[in-house]
């Protein structure tokens, strides 16, 4: 992976920069010691490592603004970092860059039940928000599987999802406002506790921008009332096709489940061996369908989904009769990644989205690719919204196996795009999928995206080397060729 060439002048001026950063963030907030820096050299995508030039951990928005202004003045690159759980290398440091960690922004500032929102700092974990409002009967809907560790600021940067997205939306549908700092140190507030933007929807474009447009210092999230009840079905099928047909059948019946997750045989066995959730082992695919809402509605829908499952050839259907049983159904799914981690020295988690009905096609293609690369693959799948997480099993100690794994992964993602899907459903492009962007977008598309960055960060100092395969200068992107000789355009319909 080619990263921007380190700027030697910036590296040479490192000591001076550290001094200037310490003047902004006193004490232990500036990390310059080589051993301590090593803790920051990677994020959740551990295959990529780079020691940052320096790490700074500010505690106030004012400090963030001062740091960014200092870096902008000195033309020093900045990599924002939340909890470092991202799976696409979005927080991969730069050798000549400052890693700006937001871990000390860890306070829940206000809970406002009247307006059904909470104001939180970006370093608060996703789960901590739900926990803070749980006793009053509320929760924050997006629930990525890393929710115990991942930060809400990182969730906004990556537009994170989770198992409840089909019914309750992803991060962008669940936040009302942010405070952010631009690369030149300007503090902006977008949105608030009201709905919809007053001008261009900058909040919408910040969400999922992977730390390339600004540093988020405060977030107002929507909180929802917990449903009256939730029940789940655990359904086993003799084939992947039958499971896929059941997913389509549920949606066609007008049902939007709270969660609808699928696992393939490899994932079912790994999960069952790991946590003994009671999954059937004689099935090719397993579906967990969770329905939530008023009791009377859930009970009715459970019946309907059972019937659809049977009509699709389900060989086992279990319905949770208690909340404890419902949670046991989820146990294996939620532990699927570590479970797979137990049966292989390493695994590589992919993240593409496809139209739901192409599921059997992509699983078939993947099993062929698995033979071609001689690497095993286990699949967990947010079936409700078409988001795939193939886990490729490999051993990094075998020379060349990581490279082979990455090639396998790239083929899967290109297939997702060919089937009408996208490169990333919820993990982001980062460095991992950067060079695949051309499979989805042409040069005009990518240039228009980069022009958006020019509006926020014209010098390209914020998180460069991520998302875009080629970096262009804003001046170059701004050039336009206009024919000033009046062109006739004879074919245009005019009235």
């Amino acid at each position, binding site marked *: 992976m080619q990263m921007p060439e380190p700027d030697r002048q910036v590296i040479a001026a490192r000591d001076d920069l550290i001094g200037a950063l310490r003047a902004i963030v006193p004490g232990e907030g500036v990390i310059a010691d080589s051993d301590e820096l090593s803790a920051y050299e990677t994020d959740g995508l551990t295959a990529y490592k780079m020691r940052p030039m320096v790490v700074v951990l500010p505690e106030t928005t004012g400090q963030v603004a001062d740091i960014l202004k200092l870096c902008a003045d000195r033309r020093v690159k900045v990599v924002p970092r939340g909890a470092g759980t991202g799976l696409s290398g979005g927080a991969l440091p730069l050798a000549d860059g400052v890693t700006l960690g937001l871990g000390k922004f860890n306070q829940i500032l206000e809970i406002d039940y009247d307006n059904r929102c909470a104001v939180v700092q970006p370093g608060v974990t996703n789960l901590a928000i739900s926990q803070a409002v749980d006793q009053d009967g509320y929760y924050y809907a997006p629930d990525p599987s890393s929710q115990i560790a991942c930060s809400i600021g990182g969730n906004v940067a990556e537009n994170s999802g989770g198992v409840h997205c089909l019914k309750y939306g992803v991060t962008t549908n669940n936040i009302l406002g942010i405070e952010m700092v631009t690369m030149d140190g300007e503090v902006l507030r977008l949105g608030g506790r009201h709905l919809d933007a007053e001008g261009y929807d900058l909040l919408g474009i910040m969400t999922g921008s992977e730390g390339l447009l600004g540093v988020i210092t405060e977030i107002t999230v929507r909180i929802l009332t917990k449903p009256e009840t939730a029940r789940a079905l655990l359904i086993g099928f003799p084939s992947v096709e039958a499971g896929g047909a059941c997913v389509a059948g549920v949606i066609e019946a007008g049902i939007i489940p709270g969660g609808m997750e699928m696992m393939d045989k490899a994932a079912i066995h790994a999960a069952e061996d790991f946590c003994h959730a009671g999954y059937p082992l004689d099935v090719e695919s397993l579906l967990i369908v969770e329905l939530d809402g008023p009791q009377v509605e859930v009970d009715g829908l459970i019946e309907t989904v059972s019937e659809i499952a049977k009509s699709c050839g389900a060989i086992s259907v279990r319905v949770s009769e208690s909340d404890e049983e419902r949670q046991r159904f989820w146990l294996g799914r939620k532990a699927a990644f570590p479970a797979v981690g137990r049966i292989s020295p390493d695994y590589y988690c992919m993240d593409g989205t496809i139209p739901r009905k192409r599921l059997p096609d992509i699983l078939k293609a993947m099993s062929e690719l698995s033979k071609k690369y001689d690497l095993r693959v286990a699949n967990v799948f947010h079936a409700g919204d078409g988001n795939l997480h193939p886990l490729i099993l490999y051993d990094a100690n075998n020379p060349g196996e990581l490279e082979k794994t990455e090639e396998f992964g790239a083929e899967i993602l290109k297939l997702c795009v060919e089937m009408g899907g996208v490169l990333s459903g919820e993990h982001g492009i980062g460095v991992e999928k950067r060079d695949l962007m051309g499979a989805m977008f042409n040069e005009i*598309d990518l240039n228009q995206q980069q022009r958006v960055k020019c509006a926020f960060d014209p010098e390209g100092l914020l998180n460069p080397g991520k998302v875009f395969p080629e970096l262009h200068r804003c001046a170059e992107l701004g050039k*336009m060729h206009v024919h000033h000789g009046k062109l006739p355009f004879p074919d245009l319909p005019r009235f």
Partner: protein
Amino acid sequence: MSTQFRPTEDTQVCDVVAWALSDGTPLEIVGHGTKSGIGRTVNLSATLETGDLTGITYYEPSELALTARAGTPLADIEAKLAENQQQLAFEPPDLGPLFGAPAGQATIGGIVGCNLSGPRRVKAGAARDHFLGVNAVSGRGELFKSGGRVVKNVSGYDLCKVLAGSYGTLAVLTDVTLKVLPAPEKTRTVLAFGLDDAAAVRAMGEAARSTLEPSALAHMPKPVATGSDVSYVAQADASVTAIRVEGTEQSVLYRCERLRELLGALASVEELHGHNSATLWRGIGNVGPFVARPDRPVWRLSVPPSAASAIVNEIDGVCEADWYYDWAGGLIWLAVDPGTEDGGASIVRGALAHAGQGGHATLVRGDAELRARVPVFQPQSAPLAALSARLKAQFDPQGVLNPGRMVTEGR
């Protein structure tokens, strides 16, 4: 002499923009023009209409997604979805009649371009939340795409968000892909009579926070309720608070009963079924109460619900106005007397500022002279306005797309 372009192909849209660039003639961008009255008056000599870019090009009910060309009438899309018991969950309103146009003329591009959402927005999200993918032509005359046909997608910046609600000032939409959802099996609306504004907003808040999952919550003070198309509302001789539940039959009957108990503790209650319920909410979403007197400036305020009744109270104290609340109090529609100084801009925005809870006010209807004189959209802080201007310049460097529609300064 004015020129109107009505392209039928995406490439012709590129050609029109290229012509505008070469000729130095900015373009007014419209679908069918039903909402041309929103925003500052553009007054341009050349118009690009997307009304001939029509047709649903992709619709897979089980994928919950639909792609249509931008000029496709909303009515056609809704009819197609209804064949499969599906709908656009953000409940797009038809604002044509508010501006004196016939009903049913809106295009999907216009709805998305103005980010217009109806009463269900409070539960299901706005147009922008259902906008999955786009093809559009920038002010550079280049056709670009963003997003896709799937709901989960973090592949590059989400340009759909910034195009939704950009009123044709960033790019000309040519194709839009929208998330679609099942239409509810059953709908019921519970009415509560005689609550004052503050009590109604509190009651709507309580219902919104309950497990009853209301899909719409509105309050009409007596003068507005009296003009309703629904006789139960018009003849109530009192203010009317309306809360809607939707879903499976059993669920709706159960929740309707629980809502009657909740509201019954505060006021006398009634319920609306099928046709009456649909008529009521259509009127609320379409700003039906303010269609009749086109001389009155109409404001749309988006506020935190807890601040709503105090803001209205302040406005009511200093000018002649009618108003009603949607989105559980988060949306206020307000019509002011035509004689009000600057169309009520200082009063309305002053009340927002005094409440100190954020939010924004848009002058949705006003004559051209008024819209030229007062900022139609909520004025932004200097740094935010500067960023928005830089963003506009990155999409439309020569200012050929609807220049001046959203802001006075710059292009």
